Every structure is written in structure tokens, then in C-alpha cells.
């Protein structure tokens, strides 16, 4: 059943892995160089994004840790029985790594010294798949804890017996030096159970699990963490579980939901940060896809990371990207004859971008490399200054927003516009507002701009000394003539003009720089079908238009549908007939119509064959007479064979349609099947 099993051969060198999509303009070792560059760029980006995600998670991790620590100590006084602490965590869309962080945090909680793990909590995970019934749920829960440590229990109990957990926990406390006393608050260890995808657990099983657990507390300090993805209101647990169960629980909730704001924040801090320079600048097409995917399909941080990685992977398939890293520039051997195609393509690009018709010779490779270096540096500088200008734009926009003037565009739209150099109307509008600011408003804006430039690196300050000095001048002028309204107005207008001038200079499209595609994805479309495939459309187009996929394009594309139908594969013919029928299909009728098409097919094949023969025999026969070529009649046996073949082909095609799920056998009518697909695009 498991077919082949192959063991690896010894050769594991990189050259068997290398591939190129552009064999006519790539280096011989281009794959390795690009792979190295990709790894560097991607790990830099990934590290940044993970840091940001980690920072986003930090508050909720802290909160959960606090709640776990407080469980059993922070209880309401005067309760008739101890309530089972349950923390419901709404993690809509975030990556599942947040639970790793919970576990790591809880398991390291209270670790004071190297060897002192007295206070650490013990965490186990339950998945809905493990809890189809109570026995397996209890078993998973208990073994999950017991397998964590090496306590010798000296007793054999069923692994689904909660008493086993009790004995284990007593032994654990013994070995940690905590006497299990009646005063449980002394013991700070908690047994934390994380229930992943809580909505998918069977409520009846969970009711029993909670009941059993609540009978064992507080001697067993169990704490449940529920991972929910449904919105916090209306609360899933309150809507689903009966009052009798809820009465045993002490539910506390904290929520973390990724909204668009989180995505915007990550994008801004990764690709439009003043300090952070990503190796690869994401183009507007990729950003648009990312925002669309996040907003429309799945607001997941995992998805975000994958999309960024795919953008990197796609970008580094371009041969030119070998120039991105300094190491590969140094190790490149361009004098090798195999590099000639690559060099040619680069030279064409360089000449095109510089307009320098003098031409480069291969002897000038050093000059070329020097040129590439300078171009790359120029791009980096330009893109950094673009980011700074964009952030300044945001500063001004935030300021005007605080005055009550809202912008209509979302942040990613602004980002894309800035990258395309089409932010003109937005910043002009902003600067018009700036020109009309009042005294105190102008003061506030000036100080904000001043603060912004104080925060950027010294290098950027050097590059932007013109606008900085202008801002300083404006501030000093403003201080000197603080009580003359006309002067203030002049200053405001001046600042407006200066800002426009500055934005005009900085917010230009990066695609006009020479060799921009070394480190910028530009408007190259994102390969969206890798994550969001159109499965149905693909299957239907395979069935309806098989000729689109064939290696040799057919010439008779002018014919209408009915005429070419007999030329298709059996399954396609059957599927065409399927689409023409009603909700239920009578299999016999289907079979009859199918065999009619096959008859046509056979007749055509025969006419073609005999016409072909006739053509060979009498080459001068006119085309119009081909129809009159006699088709040999079938014998009885032939006819039987043909009948069998038609039936076999029908059954095969029917089974194929059934196999891909286009047919439902309802059994409502004898030998009828039901369609499952009603709308077919195209």
C-alpha cells in the first residue's frame, strides 16, 4: 500500500539542487549565490517580524501568567466549594506560537536558581482530536502530565483515573520538598491544561471532564486555558455549556485579536521604519495582496509570515538579485565564459538605465561591479530617505487627524501610493492644511517634526540637513515674531511649501532608479495561487477546455462547441452533457447521449482514416468528394465489441466524475444521480 521507499543516494551537493527560471541570462553558480542572498535577507526580515509579533504577544502572555499564578489564591470568599479556574483566551487570527510562549513562560515561572524548580508550573496540551470520548480525554490529560517528570509512582492504576494524577502530584510535591498540606496556597505549582481549538471539543465530553476535574481540586491545582477563536461576545463557553457546568467554573477571559491595525503596525515597522533597513523592499503589489489576504481570507500572523517569505523566495529567482549581497559580489567570477549571457543581460540593463551608449567591455568587469555597488548603495539610501519622508508624512497626517481632519485612505493604500510615487494629492492636501494652521497648532506641529528628526540616525540627519535647517529656521523665526499674526501666517505658508518640496523630492517611485529590481519587488505580481488556489475553477477548466492545457495547441479553435465535443476526452464529453442536464440525471439517458457522441467520434475517425487512405491511393481526388468515401460496415462481432467499449468508456468516465465529487448517489430514483455542481464559470 505504501509504494516506493527510497533511501537517499550519497551525492548531496548543491549542484543537483540548482535550477534557474531564466537559463538564458543566469550565472553558472547563480542559484547558490542567490540562495545565500535570500537566506540573509529573509532571516533579517523574519527576525524583525518575529520580534514584533513577540512584542504584540507580550501583554497577553503576561496576563495569562498572572491569572495562572493567581488561581486558587484570588478566590471569592465564602464559596461553598472551590471553583475550577478557567482562563479563556481569545486568539483570533494570531499564530499558534502564542501557546508556545504561554508554555515557555509558565514553565519558567518561579524558577529562581539553576536547580530550584519548585515553583514552576507544569503545562500539558489537549487537542480536540485526542478527546473524542471521555476516556481518551482523561488519558491524554493525565499521561500528558505524568510523562513530563520521572516520578516513580510505585502503583499501577488506569491511565484515565484521576487518582493516578493525584498520586503523581503528591510524589512530585514530595520530591520538590513541598508537603501536600491542607493549605494549598503555599504550593505555587499549578497544573496547566491548554485546550487548543476549544470550539471543536465535544461539549458533552468536556462537561464530564470539567466535573471530574472540579471534584479533584484544590488538592490538584488544575488550571484550564481555553484557546478560542470566536469573538469574546457572545461568549462561546456561556452559550454552549449548561448552567450546571458553568457553576463549577471560574471563568476569566482575556483576548487578543489581530485586527487590521496589527497588520498595519507590522508592515510599518518592518518596511517603513526609520531605523530598520530590510534587504528586500516590498513592492506595492505584494503589500496589496497581503492586506487583501489578511482582510478577506484569514487574519493570521502565520499567513503574514508565509506571504513575506514567498515574496522573498519569488524575488530571489531573478538572476540580477545575486548583486544584493556583498559576499556574492566578491566571490563572483564574471570572467568565466559561462557568465557571458548573464553579463550581456546586465549590460543591456545598465545601458538602458544610464543611457550610456559607449558600451562596456568585458575587461571592464571591475568597473561594472563598482557601478553595481554604487547603484545598490544609491538605492538603499534613496529607499531609506523615502521611508523617512513617509514617516514624516504620517507624522503630519496624524497631527491633522488630531485636528479633526481625517484622511480617506488606509495606511497600506498610502504605502503603495508612496512606493509608486503617487502620493502627490495627499501630501499637497496636507500641506494646504499646514499653511492655514493657527499659532499654537503650528507650534505643536513644528515641535513634532523637530522631535521626529531628532529621533533619526545621524546619517539620515546629514542627508536631510536642508529640511531640518529649514524647520529650525522656521522655529527661530516663529519664536522671534511670536506675537505678529502676519509673520506667523508667513511661517506657516513657508513650511507648507517646504514640506511639499521635500515630499516631492523624496516620495518618488523607486522603479526609476537604475537596477532597482536588485532589492525591490516593485509591481511584480505576488504568486497568490500558492496560498489561495482556485481549485474548482482549475478542475472545471481542465474538464471544459482540455485543449488549453495541451502541449500542442489545436488549430480548429474557430469551431463551435458542438462540433468539437467529439474531439474531447470521454470525461469531458460526459461533463458537458452533465452541465446540460437538470438537477437529477438519468444514467441511461446520459449513457445514450454519450454513446451518440462516441458514434460521431468513431465516424469521424473512420472517415479520416479512409480519406487518408484514399488520398494516398489517388492523390488527385478533390476535397469535396471525401465525404463519399465508403465507410466499411461492421460485422456482428465488431458491433458487440464496440458496444462493450462504449459501455466501458462510459463507466470509466462516470466513475471519474464520481471520484472527483461531481455526483451524488441519492437512491431516490432508480439509477439516477444528482449533480453537486450548478454554477460553472466560463
Amino acid at each position, binding site marked *: *500500500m505504501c*509504494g*516506493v*521507499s*527510497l*533511501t*537517499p*543516494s550519497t551525492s548531496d551537493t548543491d549542484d543537483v539542487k540548482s*535550477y*534557474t*527560471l531564466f537559463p538564458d541570462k543566469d550565472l553558472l553558480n547563480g542559484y547558490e549565490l542567490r540562495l545565500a542572498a535570500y537566506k540573509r535577507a529573509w532571516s533579517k526580515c523574519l527576525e524583525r517580524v518575529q520580534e514584533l509579533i513577540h512584542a504584540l504577544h507580550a501583554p497577553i502572555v503576561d496576563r495569562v501568567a498572572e491569572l495562572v499564578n493567581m488561581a486558587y489564591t484570588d478566590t471569592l470568599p465564602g464559596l461553598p466549594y472551590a471553583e475550577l479556574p478557567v482562563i479563556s483566551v481569545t486568539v483570533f487570527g494570531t*499564530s499558534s506560537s502564542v501557546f508556545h510562549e504561554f*508554555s515557555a513562560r509558565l514553565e519558567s515561572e518561579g524558577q529562581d536558581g539553576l536547580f530550584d524548580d519548585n515553583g514552576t508550573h507544569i503545562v*500539558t496540551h489537549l*487537542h480536540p482530536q485526542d478527546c*473524542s470520548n471521555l476516556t481518551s480525554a482523561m488519558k491524554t490529560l493525565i499521561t500528558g502530565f505524568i510523562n513530563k517528570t520521572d516520578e516513580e509512582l510505585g502503583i499501577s492504576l488506569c491511565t484515565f483515573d484521576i487518582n493516578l494524577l493525584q498520586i503523581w502530584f503528591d510524589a512530585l510535591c514530595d520530591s520538590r520538598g513541598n508537603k501536600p498540606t491542607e493549605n494549598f496556597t503555599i504550593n505555587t505549582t499549578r497544573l496547566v491544561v491548554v485546550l487548543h481549538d476549544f470550539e471543536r471539543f465535544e461539549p458533552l465530553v468536556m462537561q464530564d471532564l470539567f466535573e471530574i476535574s472540579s471534584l479533584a481540586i484544590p488538592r490538584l491545582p488544575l488550571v484550564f486555558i481555553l484557546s478560542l477563536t470566536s469573538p469574546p461576545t457572545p461568549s462561546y463557553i456561556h452559550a454552549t455549556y449548561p448552567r450546571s457546568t458553568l457553576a463549577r467554573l471560574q471563568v476569566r477571559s482575556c483576548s487578543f485579536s489581530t485586527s487590521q491595525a496589527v497588520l498595519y503596525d507590522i508592515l510599518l515597522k518592518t518596511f517603513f521604519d526609520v531605523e530598520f533597513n530590510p534587504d528586500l523592499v516590498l513592492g506595492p503589489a505584494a503589500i496589496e495582496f497581503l492586506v487583501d489576504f489578511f482582510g478577506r481570507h484569514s487574519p493570521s500572523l*502565520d499567513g503574514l509570515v*508565509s506571504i513575506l*517569505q514567498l515574496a522573498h*523566495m519569488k524575488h530571489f529567482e531573478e538572476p540580477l538579485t545575486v548583486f544584493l549581497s556583498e559576499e556574492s559580489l566578491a566571490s563572483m567570477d564574471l570572467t568565466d565564459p559561462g557568465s557571458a549571457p548573464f553579463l550581456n543581460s546586465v549590460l543591456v540593463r545598465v545601458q538602458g538605465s544610464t543611457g550610456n551608449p559607449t558600451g562596456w567591455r568585458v575587461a571592464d568587469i571591475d568597473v561594472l561591479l563598482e557601478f553595481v555597488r554604487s547603484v545598490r548603495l544609491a538605492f538603499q539610501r534613496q529607499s531609506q530617505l523615502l521611508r523617512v519622508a513617509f514617516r514624516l508624512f504620517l507624522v503630519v497626517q496624524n497631527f491633522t487627524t488630531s485636528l479633526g481632519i481625517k484622511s480617506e485612505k488606509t495606511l497600506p493604500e498610502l504605502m503603495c501610493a508612496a512606493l509608486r510615487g503617487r502620493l502627490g494629492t495627499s501630501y499637497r492636501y496636507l500641506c494646504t492644511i499646514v499653511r492655514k494652521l493657527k499659532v499654537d497648532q503650528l507650534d505643536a506641529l513644528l515641535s513634532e517634526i523637530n522631535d521626529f528628526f531628532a529621533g533619526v540616525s545621524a546619517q539620515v540627519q546629514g542627508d536631510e540637513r536642508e529640511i531640518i535647517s529649514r524647520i529650525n529656521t522656521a522655529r527661530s523665526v516663529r519664536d522671534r515674531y511670536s506675537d505678529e499674526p502676519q509673520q506667523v501666517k508667513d511661517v506657516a505658508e513657508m513650511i507648507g511649501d517646504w514640506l511639499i518640496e521635500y515630499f516631492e523630492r523624496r516620495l518618488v517611485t523607486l522603479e526609476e532608479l537604475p537596477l532597482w529590481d536588485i532589492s525591490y519587488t516593485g509591481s511584480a505580481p505576488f504568486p497568490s495561487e500558492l496560498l489561495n*488556489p482556485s*481549485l*474548482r475553477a*482549475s*478542475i472545471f477548466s*481542465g*474538464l471544459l477546455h*482540455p485543449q488549453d*492545457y*495541451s*502541449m500542442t495547441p489545436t488549430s480548429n479553435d474557430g469551431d463551435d462547441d458542438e462540433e468539437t465535443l467529439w474531439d474531447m*476526452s470521454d*470525461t469531458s464529453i460526459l461533463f458537458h452533457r452533465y452541465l446540460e*442536464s*437538470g*438537477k*437529477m*440525471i438519468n444514467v*441511461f*439517458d446520459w449513457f*445514450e*447521449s454519450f454513446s*451518440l457522441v462516441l458514434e460521431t467520434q468513431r465516424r469521424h475517425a473512420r472517415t479520416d482514416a479512409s480519406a487518408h487512405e484514399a488520398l494516398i491511393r489517388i492523390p488527385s481526388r478533390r476535397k469535396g468528394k471525401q465525404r463519399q468515401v465508403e465507410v466499411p460496415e461492421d460485422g456482428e462481432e465488431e458491433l458487440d465489441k464496440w458496444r*462493450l467499449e462504449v*459501455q*466501458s468508456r462510459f*463507466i*470509466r468516465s462516470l*466513475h*471519474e466524475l*464520481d*471520484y*472527483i*465529487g461531481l*455526483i451524488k*448517489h441519492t437512491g431516490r430514483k432508480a*439509477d439516477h444521480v444528482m*449533480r453537486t455542481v*450548478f*454554477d460553472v464559470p466560463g
Partner: protein
Amino acid sequence: MDTDTDVSDNDQTHLLNVLNGADADAQHVRAAFDAYFVQAASRVRTSANVFSTRVLPLTQQEYNDSIAAYNARTADAQPSTCWFGHHDARTAFRRYAHELDQGFNLVFYGFGSKRAVLNDFATKELAHRGHVIAVNGYHPNITLKDVLASIERVPSLTNASATGTDAQVRRICFFFSAADAPRTRRLYLVIHNIDAPPMRAQKMRNALSLLALSPNIHLVASVDKINVPLLWSASELLARKISFKDTAASLSSMEGHTASPKRGYAFLWHDLTTLIPYDTELSFADRSSISGASYASTGARSALATTTSSGSGAPLTETAVAHVIAAVTSKAKKLFILLGSRQLENAETASGAAMGSDAPAPTDMAQFGLGYDALFSLAREHFVATSDTALRALLGEFKDHGLILAGAAGGGSGGGDTLWIPLRKERLVRVLKSIETEAP
């Protein structure tokens, strides 16, 4: 469809066209679900013909023969699609392998069997990089145990004693993600039809979703069903592989006792429309029945498995007849010939009478059978059986093996039970001829 006596579906199509036209006039934009309501609004009008009574089911042998003949005839017209896009197959394979290396698993969709291409991918590309296990998910009887057992055939993996699938999965994960593992210790799990019913079982999915996120285990899967995206949740599909850093930390502390809690698939989707017929995938389909392949989408027990185990219901083959005939007494053989030749005669006269009326070829043999009384008198005349008991004894053997069927069909001469041989006319002729030539 234009069968003469039936209410044709053309009316239905016409109705649909009218409806569509009306919609266009009213400038309505037709949404996807409108198509459903248009279909559901009208009464379904189909003919009263029943496929299984009008067409005799094929035997496996007949099916195989005619498909083989058809394939041989059209061998040069087999579909060859450019599934690999603008580049050649090798580049496509290496690109896929590169994506696997970067921490994604691959899933291939599109119409046509992807088995050959994926096997090619496994042997030509993946075999250089690590251990490859190909799982034939379309096999109706495959279980998680089989899959894990073949993974454990990887050298130096099976030295542990733990049994049970959970422990096995944990051990496999641990083995392939150990920090000190050599570079070649990679596992490529090629799963043909990860959407097949046995692969959809909860246990299988648990194990696969755990294995799929292990950093050195790579999943390459194919899917064929149109509703396959419903199998997995968005978070499962988008979950990312555990990085080596995480695994090292979690494994060193747990010594592999606990499986990593992360589950998912990290799939990248690729269109692989090959248009190749699903012959291998459907090799377990019962070709004698129109619902013979439904096990492959619904997960019900294979029709083939049920019919062959019960012995009846499967269409009779010539070889089966030959085996039974060889084992019975000469008297019984004579009886079979008697019944067969009389049945043929009946069929001949019926077809001769119906020659003028252009009726479809008679396929239902029950109407040409012989009444029990008629057969008894015939048997007495030929000294095959002189008493009712003797005849019943002779018939018993044939009935047990399904060579002769009995029923209350109206077409037989005389009252009571009708007996007939459930074979096509031409096949019956062949069978009788072969018995006569063998008999002395």
C-alpha cells in the same frame, strides 16, 4: 439526448436558456447560487429508463479488455499537458524541492491523475535528498499503521520498543528533528490522494498534521476532490513549520516524551492538471455498477469488496462458468446445455420478431428463460433427470454458484418459477460451444 421514447432533457435545457435570457433582459447579475435555484425551481424531468435493467453490467474482464483495446488504439493521442508551466519538468521539480527546503509542504490539485508525475518527482529529485516514502492514499484499506510501519523501515529508526501509533509518531518526529541528525536525514512523504477516505480518518489526520510540521519531514500530496478545501481549517493550512531552534529547545527538555503541540500543514498549492485518466486511483472501483466508485468519495465500503466477498451479485464471467462446469457431473452439464440452447432459441425468435420494430438489442435474459415445468419435461425427454428431486439436486449446484437464476419472470413459458442463465447472448453462445467441444 434524443432517445425516441423518452422525455428528453432538451426541454430542461431549453427552460434554463429561457430563464437565463429573462435574467439578462432584466439586467440581473446572476450570482453563483442562482444557478442552484434555477435548477431546483423546476421539476426534474427524466425518462423512466433504468440503466441497470436495460444494460447488462460489465464484468471486470470485459471492462479491462475493452479499455485496454481502446488505450492501445489511442496511445498516440494520450493527453500530454504542460503542467510544469513555462519551464521544463526538471526545473519545475527543483523549484518544488526548493520550496520544500524552505519549510513548506506541497499539495497538487487539478484534473487528471497526478500519480505518475509525483512518482517521477520522488525518484528523480527527492531520492537524492533524503528518504522517500510513497503512500497510496487511494487504496481503500490503507491504515495509519501501514504508513507508520513503512516510515519505520528507514534504517536506524526501529530500535525502540514503544508500540502504539502515538508513540510511533512521536518517535518519528523526534528521530527526524534531532539536533545532531545528519543533513541527509530528511523524510519526504509523498501521499497520493491525501483527500481519499482512508486518509481523511481522524487518526490519520492527527498523525499527518504532526508529521507535516516537523522541520525535516516534508509532505508532498495530491488532491482530486472538488470540495477538498473543506478538509482543513485556515489556521491548519497556514500554520508554519517548527523551526529548528524551537524543536531543539522543546525536545531537549522533553526527551521526546510529548509531541510538540503544533499541528498543521503549511501547504503551498500547485496546479498540476495532467488530464491523465484516473485508472490507478480507481483500480478498486467496481466497474459493474454505476455507483462503483462512490466509495472513493464517500468512504463507504468498496462495492467491489462487498460483492466479491458475498459471491452473488457480481456479474458472471465465462471463466467462472467454465470452472463450475468442469466440476459437475455430465448429467448436470447436459442440463446446462439444454437450458442454454433453449434460452438462445427463445432469444433468436424474439429478436427475429422484433426485427421490424427497431427495438434496442435485448439484454435482459430473464425474459428468455424457461419455466420450471418446461425444463422438467425437457430434462425427462433427454434422460437427464427423471424425478423432480433429481432435477432440483442438479439445479442446486448451479444456483449456488449463480450460473442459473430463478425468479418469477413473466416471459417464460409455463407457470411457476422461471430459470435462466445470466449471460449475454454472445457469451452464452461461446460458453455452450466450448462445453460441447470439450465434451466427448
